[in-house]
């Protein structure tokens, strides 16, 4: 029974639930059982909220029995990245400094999931405060890639991606600041979508880099991502940067794309991202994906975005700068960890000891890097210059979108690497986000969709669209998806007992 349910996509479960062939409680319990069976090996979850999930499921079943009109995903359970505040459910951001913190409020996104009747299975693992590309920087231990337990599931949202890839959940929520939804999607063979910045609310999303953070869907199919996008997106008055416009028709676009027709669609290949930088296997799989898009009738043109090569440095100045300020609040005064308060030490010392003990090395590095970039003498040369480059990158996108409807590239330069392979040299880790960062700096939507295998490991293709044209990326991604049979990892339950 379990695999019959947990193997299903959200869209399929939605139909079964509506047809009354399964109950929300059955679906939720099946996924909880699956978590019980495999998460010991994956460590995708930091906290499993069985009671809450089942209670939510019961409410949905009752409502359906009462003949209430329910949303498309009512009764479909979901895994939420531990960076979103969940009322009454621990929220740690993968950090010791927040261990045991139970928020007194819900993030807007979480509120919308609850309102949509989606049982929250639990909170998923992540690099501490979403800083990382492998989930190895979680203070609570890494998450393992269901395709190969010796490899990383990407990051920072490795937990949600691994959970969805291993069918612990049909859907997940991630947050994408430099690629944290898309890169895990690529290396776990799942779909990861970063909506337009401001298209999904940041209220209740523990900030890493406020001007870049964007929550979005994690799923196994493009349609599922669109269905979830529809639920979580839309204007939120509690987020000043939330866009007061209707949600683009993402579900319709995904369905249209699935028909496999891309005639008259102009797609741009980012010159600067084709060729060097990526592993040969990645490039090969990507080229294959491009050919399939051509077969569907798409017109491919090469587009130059000359400033994309400065995206990585710009990002590693802007993001740490904002993070150094955003993470200042973790000082052991109002919530979270406090160490060294022996009655003799002064506050300043206790604060420093608390932050020293509570933050991991990558977070400390970025806090210091950002503190440096914002310092009086360096502001103009670093943070200021990075913001100007951000403008130039935005102009590159705008110029490109005058010629084409979407841009494509490989999602990440390399397949899932072995644990520990890139922790020694932080900059090697940063390179994982080489192709995903430009969309964050610009604010436009981007999605990673599986497009093949390399060394038996998943490779993702990234589709980038103009701001508030999220529907375009769903259409193209769904079209590409229609040309392959879905990738699924070996079933952990059988092969690693």
């Amino acid at each position, binding site marked *: 029974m379990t695999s019959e349910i947990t193997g299903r996509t959200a869209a399929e479960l939605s139909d079964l639930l509506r047809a009354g062939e399964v109950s929300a409680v059955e679906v939720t319990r099946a996924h909880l059982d699956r978590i019980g069976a495999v998460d010991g090996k994956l460590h995708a979850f930091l906290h499993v909220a069985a009671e809450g999930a089942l209670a939510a499921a019961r409410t949905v079943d009752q409502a359906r029995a009462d003949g209430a009109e329910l949303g498309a995903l009512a009764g479909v359970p979901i895994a939420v990245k531990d960076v979103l505040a969940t009322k009454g459910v621990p929220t740690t951001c993968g950090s010791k400094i927040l261990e045991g913190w139970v928020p007194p409020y819900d993030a807007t996104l979480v509120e919308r999931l609850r309102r949509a009747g989606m049982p929250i299975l639990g909170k998923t693992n992540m690099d501490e405060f979403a800083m990382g590309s492998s989930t190895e920087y979680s203070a609570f231990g890494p998450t393992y890639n269901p395709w190969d337990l010796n490899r990383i599931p990407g990051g920072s949202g490795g937990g949600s991606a691994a959970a969805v890839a291993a069918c612990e959940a049909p859907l997940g929520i991630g947050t994408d600041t430099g690629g944290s939804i898309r890169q895990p999607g690529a290396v776990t063979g799942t779909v990861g979508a970063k909506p337009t910045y401001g298209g999904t609310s940041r209220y209740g999303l523990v900030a890493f880099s406020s001007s870049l953070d964007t929550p979005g869907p994690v799923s196994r199919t493009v349609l599922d991502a669109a269905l979830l996008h529809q639920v979580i997106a839309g204007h939120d008055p509690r987020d000043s*940067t939330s866009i007061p416009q209707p949600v683009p028709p993402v579900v319709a676009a995904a369905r249209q794309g699935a028909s496999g027709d891309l005639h008259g669609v102009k797609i741009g290949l980012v010159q600067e991202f084709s060729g060097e930088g990526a592993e040969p296997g990645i490039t090969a799989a990507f080229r294959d994906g491009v050919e399939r898009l051509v077969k569907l009738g798409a017109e491919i043109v090469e587009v130059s975005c000359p400033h994309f090569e400065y995206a990585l440095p710009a990002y590693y100045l802007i993001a740490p700068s904002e993070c150094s300020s955003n993470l200042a609040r973790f000082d052991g005064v*109002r919530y979270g960890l*406090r160490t060294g308060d022996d009655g003799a030490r002064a506050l300043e010392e206790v604060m420093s000891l608390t932050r020293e003990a509570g933050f991991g090395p990558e977070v*400390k590095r970025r806090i210091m890097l950002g503190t440096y970039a914002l310092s009086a003498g360096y502001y103009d040369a670093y943070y200021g210059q990075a913001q*100007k480059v951000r403008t130039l990158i935005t102009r590159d996108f705008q110029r490109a979108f005058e010629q084409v409807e979407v841009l494509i590239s490989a999602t990440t330069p390399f397949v899932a690497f072995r644990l520990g392979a890139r922790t020694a040299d932080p900059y090697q880790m940063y390179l994982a986000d080489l192709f995903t960062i430009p969309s964050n*700096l610009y604010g436009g939507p981007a999605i990673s969709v599986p497009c093949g295998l390399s060394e038996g490991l998943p490779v993702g293709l990234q589709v980038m669209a103009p701001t508030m044209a999220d529907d375009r990326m769903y259409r193209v991604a769904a079209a590409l998806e229609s040309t392959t049979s879905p990738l699924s990892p070996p079933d952990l339950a059988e092969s690693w007992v």
Partner: protein
Amino acid sequence: MPAISREEVAHLARLARLAVTESELDTFAGQLDVILQSVARIGDVTAEDIPPTSHAVPLTNVFREDEPLPGLEQGAALAAAPDAEAGRFRVPRILEEEE
């Protein structure tokens, strides 16, 4: 020559309220130097007359009306406090004067 010295890193740690250890200082100094050397390329871009982008979305004048909303009860406000006393958050003695 390194982009950042060990002393600078120590200063940053103080500014950021991080009681880093001596050995951490050595490690971070090296790593931050590598990172800064590589991001320094940003300076190659000629951008004098380019306006900086601080916000991805070009919105202005996003306001709320001056109407009270329910907040947290004192108990809920203090619930996560490492230490509280008389309805307030308790902290050790403070060395520096207030701003």
